[in-house]
């Protein structure tokens, strides 16, 4: 039991680094939050009912942002239902509120309370109601109570992190397999762009552009991904049949893939795509998780099972750990390597389709430098570049570590050039920590 715990720690030590980072950014971004929408409305309603009974006269003041609109609508509905008189609803700016107050004041109407959000409650127009609008009586400003909560931990922000990293994390699955075999795949960034352009072009040219059907789009995406797989098979064949180092082969395919993507896109971005195409990248059908994120988790679960429980996974590790010993033990080394490069290319293709869906267009500029971020995710996740070891869930942790650092720096207003410096040092630091842990 103790043994398995220490093994778990050594396999997944990066998780603790990730949690520490999350804790750090939570503390740093802890700040006053102003509730909006229905939750804020509920607070204000109960406060008004407590102080003024069932039938007060109320003015509702809100800005025209979506959360505030819901806030205003909710108060109007609830208070009216309980017998209160909602004199007016202001949706907009302080001058709208002034107009409304002037009107009520002129009509000699009284007001008991003004229901505000935190932002509207601070409007200057409400600061001296007694002298400005004496006819109103002495209306009280009622605002929802603020609370402290880290910006980092807001559900929207967490989803944002997951959404931003989904593409890199998915491509990193294939990269992990390749690196475990002792290889490297530099072509994934270019394949991502190629796949996005291919999918967009297929939809524009063959599936009917903006009027494309679901099955048309599906076919276009599958075709784009499969073509990427063909490129991966070509790389794999070069590596296994002619023993060219993977670095060289995939470097060449990186240039070829990127060039072909630019040629096919004719240097432009292709956007003649139906609106429904964004379902994969932006839709959220399952407990408000974005579809791309759900897909990412499913793929990681499958890849984890493959690597830890299946014969093929064992073979991938063996080929990377000692290719000659594996071959002499009857491992079909060449097919195993082919699988790794094809899988990497297919997943890069899938990444391209997701990106095209997120941005609702296909362009050859997508995925620029992604191969390096993907490799960084794999390496930060504890996979050794010399092959033979590494864990799929480690890579997921690595991808999230990078995303959390980027996101945290955005929240704390670190400028983008500094972000690059920090990210570079963090990657180095993560690998260093890993080395020291193993040297012990």
């Amino acid at each position, binding site marked *: 039991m103790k*043994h398995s715990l220490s*093994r778990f720690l050594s396999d997944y030590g990066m998780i603790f680094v990730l949690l520490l980072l999350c804790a750090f950014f939570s503390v740093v971004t802890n700040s006053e939050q102003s509730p909006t929408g229905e939750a804020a409305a509920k607070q204000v309603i109960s406060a008004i009912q407590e102080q003024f009974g069932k039938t007060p006269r109320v003015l509702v003041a809100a800005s025209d942002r979506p959360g505030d609109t819901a806030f205003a609508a909710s108060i109007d509905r609830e208070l009216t239902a309980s017998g209160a008189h909602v004199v007016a609803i202001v949706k907009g700016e302080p001058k709208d509120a002034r107009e409304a107050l002037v009107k009520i004041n002129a009509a000699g109407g009284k007001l008991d309370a003004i229901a505000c959000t935190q932002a509207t409650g601070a409007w200057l127009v409400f600061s001296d109601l007694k002298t400005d609008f004496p006819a109103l009586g002495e209306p009280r400003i009622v605002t929802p109570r603020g609370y402290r909560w880290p910006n980092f931990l807001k559900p929207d922000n967490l989803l944002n992190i997951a959404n931003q990293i989904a593409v890199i994390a998915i491509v990193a699955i294939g990269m992990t397999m390749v690196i475990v075999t002792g290889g490297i795949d530099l072509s994934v960034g270019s394949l991502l762009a190629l796949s996005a352009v291919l999918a967009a072009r297929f939809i524009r040219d063959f599936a009917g552009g903006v009027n494309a059907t679901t099955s048309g789009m599906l076919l276009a995406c599958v075709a784009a991904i499969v073509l990427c797989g063909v490129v991966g098979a070509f790389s794999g064949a070069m590596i296994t049949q002619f023993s060219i180092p993977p670095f060289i082969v995939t470097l060449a395919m990186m240039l070829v893939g990127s060039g072909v993507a630019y040629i096919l896109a004719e240097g432009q971005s292709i956007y003649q795509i139906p609106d429904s195409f964004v379902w994969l990248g932006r839709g959220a059908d399952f407990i408000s998780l974005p579809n791309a994120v759900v897909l990412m988790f499913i793929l990681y679960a499958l890849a984890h099972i493959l690597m830890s*429980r*299946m*014969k*093929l996974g*064992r*073979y991938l*590790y*063996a080929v990377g*750990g*000692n290719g*000659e*010993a*594996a*071959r*002499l*033990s*009857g*491992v*079909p080394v060449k097919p195993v390597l082919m699988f790794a490069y094809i899988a990497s290319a297919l997943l890069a293709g899938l990444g391209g389709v997701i990106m095209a869906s997120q941005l609702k267009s296909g362009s050859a500029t997508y995925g620029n430098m992604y191969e390096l971020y993907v490799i960084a995710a794999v390496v930060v996740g504890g996979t050794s570049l010399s092959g*033979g*070891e590494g864990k799929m869930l480690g890579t997921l942790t690595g991808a999230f570590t990078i995303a959390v650092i980027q996101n945290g720096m955005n929240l704390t207003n670190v400028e983008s050039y500094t972000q690059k410096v920090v990210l570079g040092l963090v990657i180095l630091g993560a690998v260093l920590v890993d080395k020291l842990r193993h040297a012990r």
Partner: protein
Amino acid sequence: MSDAGPLLEMRGIVKSFPGVQALRGVDLSLLAGEVLALLGENGAGKSTLMKVLGGAYHADEGTVTIGGRQTAIHSPQDSRSAGVAVIYQEFNLVPGLTAVENIFLGQEVTRAGFVAQKQERKRAAALFKRLGVEIDLDAPCRRLTTAQRQLVEIAKALAFDARIIVMDEPSAALTSHEVERLFEIIPDLKSQGIGIIYISHRLDEIFTIADRVTVLRDGKNVGERPISQIARNEMIELMVGRELKDEFPARSRRIGAPRLQVSGLRRGRAVRDVSFVVRRGEILALTGLVGAGRTETVRLIFGADPREAGEIRLDGIVLDIRSPQDAIAAGIGLLTEDRKLQGLVLGHSARENFGLPNLTWLSRRGFVQLGSEREHFARFVDQLRIKAPNQEQRAGNLSGGNQQKVVLAKWLARNCDVLMFDEPTRGIDVGAKYEIYLLMNELVLAGKSIVMISSELPEVLGMADRILVMHKGRVTGEIADARRATQEQIMQLAVA
């Protein structure tokens, strides 16, 4: 250097690793101009002791005194500047650099920051002359033979005036002729006042070259004698800690019908028209000098290298073997010569290594049956007495004998009909050797066929039923009854 005291004195050396106490207070002394043989089974602590001396490990306790002065050794540099040169089994030469560059690596002769190449060449040439050998000074070391590389290592030691030279299994990769050459050089070194610590499993060599022996067992000294006062049996008993009646266990022979028949095997200059038959229940020894084409022959049968011509039959049926996968599927296993490079994935666990050739039957619908893998491996751990803390131990952390047993286990589990063992006992201690011999006997009794490659003639004579001798890629002779063969007879055929 004073003549009175010993050249090297190690006292009470203690070194422990997590979970293992490798050295428990070992003493060792070496006189100037003496060859001290350091003996012990694998895991007895010889290598650890030498790594402490060489600065690769730092001892927990104990003192090292060199030339009468207590010396703190914290790094290989410390050890080197104290005059100690350790020549490991895996040579520390940069393959792409020439002999001269390797000799002066890290101690280049420079003038104003530039390497004084002419002077280095001159000094290297002088060193090789002193050793009485000729080596191409400009060839990159990867093109030198193993024996030549070893000489470069010795020259390197002399170049920085080493007074103590440690040789770890220097003869393991040498042909018998090359070993003789090495044995001509060692007395020269002795006469120059250099003390040599010589580690070897080959007892014959020890009697030829050593002046004194120190035996370790389980990290402790168990005996120290002048070579003239110890007999071979006594030496073995000291090493294994029990009485050993025979080096080779006896067995009854039940040899049946031909099983593996190869004819006209050919590949380049390494294997030229090799044909032979192995029968059921037979151990066929394939011997000859290193480079005679023995390993190449079994690799062709196993499909590890493509063959240019030749036919392989198993029980009369022609096999189309194009890869190790095909051979394994047909029931042929190969225990490779180099277990670290070819036999094991050192970074993976013993269990995973065991499973590698067996996953085809240990998995169902692509999923590895982990439980059943663990069960089968546990059975072999028991049967072969593999000493490991648990199945998840990294193969690289096991001792040589236990590594070899893991490799054996993986082939035994495969239940091959024909097993080809390439140097099955190389670098393995006496006790483990005996166990492997017992196992080979059991296998042939069960009707399996074994092809054994071995350079150790006593082993060939002790184990084989029939002997094939190879020379320059051809079979130069067959000795049908190994029981009546002699070492001289084999050597005659081997150099023919």
